[in-house]
């Protein structure tokens, strides 16, 4: 089943690959070219800053978690997983007041229902969001690339079979699919990640396949084939690098989408388990406290918002930068 029989080939969000001959494609595949374009594009730059900042926070949190066992967190902030010594539950952000007390400077964003510092939990939530976002995208990208490339390159029954399977996966609303998948295999974060990754496979598959189909007929691929270059080499040395730009754009956007889905899953109780500080789970826990301590529900949401905005802006910027059609 195609999404639209009339437009099935260009309904990917970018689709900015029709313009320009192969020489332009060549010019637009390189990392250096990308970086240069990104530097020149304001939105892409802002996106890069946000994503870079979030990545930095995530790396910091991961380092502190894996290597130092929250040593930095405990020295500078509060351990995001355990209670601080003095439990002050549901404090509002500094400067505000609620029935549980007055916000204090040590907890700039206030505390949660266990008296844990919301700032440090939000910061450490970045680690999970980013990890999950990147890995899920990597799974989708890897799976989609292989399936799309093989499918597009060989065509025929291989193409038919693979495309029917991915279409079927695509036909089940992905949150439902991931929930069913996690029920079957496991409800922790790892399976959330794998599940979200699997739902992203059709997206990349479609992208890669349509490019492979168009590039397959290009002279230089024909030439390579005539020269006896192996199919696998043609696919991985020639075709896939030529799809760099749209895939990069899609992957960037997909990271944001994955973060959103995983947050939703955690909110429903599929994913990170307490006391792990994940944004979705924090929001889920905050539901019972919306009345006395509404700010508890606000900050994790804002963190998600900013991170995903970062990836979306970067994706948009990359698309503008790498797609000459839109340039004025």
């Amino acid at each position, binding site marked *: 089943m195609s999404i639209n029989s009339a437009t099935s080939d260009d309904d990917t969000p970018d689709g900015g690959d029709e313009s320009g*001959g*192969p*020489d332009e494609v*060549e010019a637009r595949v*390189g990392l250096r070219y990308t970086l240069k374009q990104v530097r020149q594009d304001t939105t892409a730059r802002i996106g890069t800053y946000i994503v870079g900042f979030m990545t930095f926070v995530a790396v910091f949190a991961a380092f502190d978690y894996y290597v130092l066992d929250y040593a930095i967190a405990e020295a500078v902030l509060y351990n995001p997983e355990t209670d601080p010594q003095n439990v002050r539950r549901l404090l509002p952000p500094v400067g505000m007041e609620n029935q549980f007390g007055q916000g204090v400077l040590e907890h700039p964003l206030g505390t949660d229902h266990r008296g844990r510092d919301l700032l440090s939990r939000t910061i450490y939530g970045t680690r999970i969001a980013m990890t999950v976002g990147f890995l899920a995208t990597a799974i989708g990208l890897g799976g989609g690339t292989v399936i799309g490339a093989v499918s597009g390159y060989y065509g025929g029954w291989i193409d038919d079979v693979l495309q029917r399977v991915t279409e079927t996966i695509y036909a089940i609303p992905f949150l439902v699919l991931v929930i069913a998948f996690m029920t079957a295999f496991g409800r922790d974060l790892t399976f959330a990640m794998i599940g979200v990754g699997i739902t992203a496979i059709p997206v990349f598959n479609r992208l890669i396949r349509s490019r492979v189909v168009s590039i397959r007929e290009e002279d*230089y691929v024909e030439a390579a084939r005539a020269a006896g270059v192996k199919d696998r080499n043609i696919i991985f040395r*020639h075709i896939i*690098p*030529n799809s760099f730009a749209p895939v990069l754009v899609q992957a960037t956007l997909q990271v944001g989408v994955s973060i959103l889905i995983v947050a939703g899953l955690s909110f429903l109780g599929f994913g990170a388990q307490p006391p792990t500080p994940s944004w979705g789970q924090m929001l889920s826990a905050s539901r019972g406290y919306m009345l006395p301590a509404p700010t508890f529900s606000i900050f994790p949401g804002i963190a998600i918002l900013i991170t995903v905005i970062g990836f979306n802006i970067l994706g948009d910027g990359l698309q503008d930068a790498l797609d000459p059609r839109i340039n*004025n």
Partner: protein
Amino acid sequence: MSEPLLSVRDLKTQFFTEDGTVRAVDGISFDVHEGEIVGLVGESGAGKSVATSSILRLVDSPGEIVGGEIEFKGETIFGLEADDDGELRPRDEMLTENEMRKRIRGREIAIIFQDPMESLNPVFTVGGQLREFIEINRDLDPDEAKEEAIDMLREVGIPAPESRYDEYPHQFSGGMRQRVLIAMALACQPDLIIADEPTTALDVTVEGEILEMVTELQEKYDTSFIWVTHDMSVVAEICDRVNVMYLGEIIEQAEVDDLFYDTKHPYTSALLDSMPRPDRTVDELRPIEGVMPEAIDPPAGCRFHSRCPEAREVCREVHPEPRDLSEEGEPRHAAACVKHDAFDVGYDESPPIDTRAGGGFSAGLTETGGEAE
């Protein structure tokens, strides 16, 4: 000679982009008289289409007409004057945007675009689109407009126009669509039709048919045409007078026969050499060397010097304006090349430049690149 229908004087249209100002049309002047077909010739990017858009004041942002005058039947389509502070502002008699829309566009000056495949709206019927334009520009009610539309479709040679009236553009071939566009232009009964490379996208036989049809209809309706093209053979076939454009400027202006048989500008010669001509046999066609420089930063001196086989050092320095080089009593034949004595800037003494080496512009656009490394 009678008062021209359209008079363009020193028209300048520029595009203000992030990379700088693109001087797409840089001071061109020409006239169109009643009943004549005036050619506007040049390579892609010479500014022909911008010039025609300027005439209708339809230059898209970030483009803007920055100077010059356009007069049509005594009305000022465009004209600036300096106010007390020396700032340029539109003259009072310049038509407002609303007047342009209501009185000029379609009604007085119609246009036929280059790409028949894209110019028709894919989601409306051909007849509907034609009828809408007729309704707007001829104040007919829908039924009359429809009748007129069907007549016009028949006129431009579309078989069974009654049934094809309700078909969609994608059901028409390219040539048929171009006929529809021509029908649109003619149906509005304008005094001037601007045909912007209307046959470029068509194959040669269709092109021939269309040109023939246009010639006939032009005689029948006595409409004036500005015929924009890069194809000298088309020019030879239908034009009365020709303006050759290069990089935003008109570099030669002559009656069609004069242009072909008494070519005065090396660029025109190069254009002629690059196309097959029924009147001459040449051993081989010679494409013009190099590509046209970008209008954003045109070369100093003569803009063609970087590709001109006859270029000399002086061409780098002197920027020639077109001058009438015709003999007394003959029709005007202007060219902007310093090799003519009329310019008298020391061309003959000046040492030649090697344009092949100095061309310096990548020719890669048309080549097939290899894979990325």
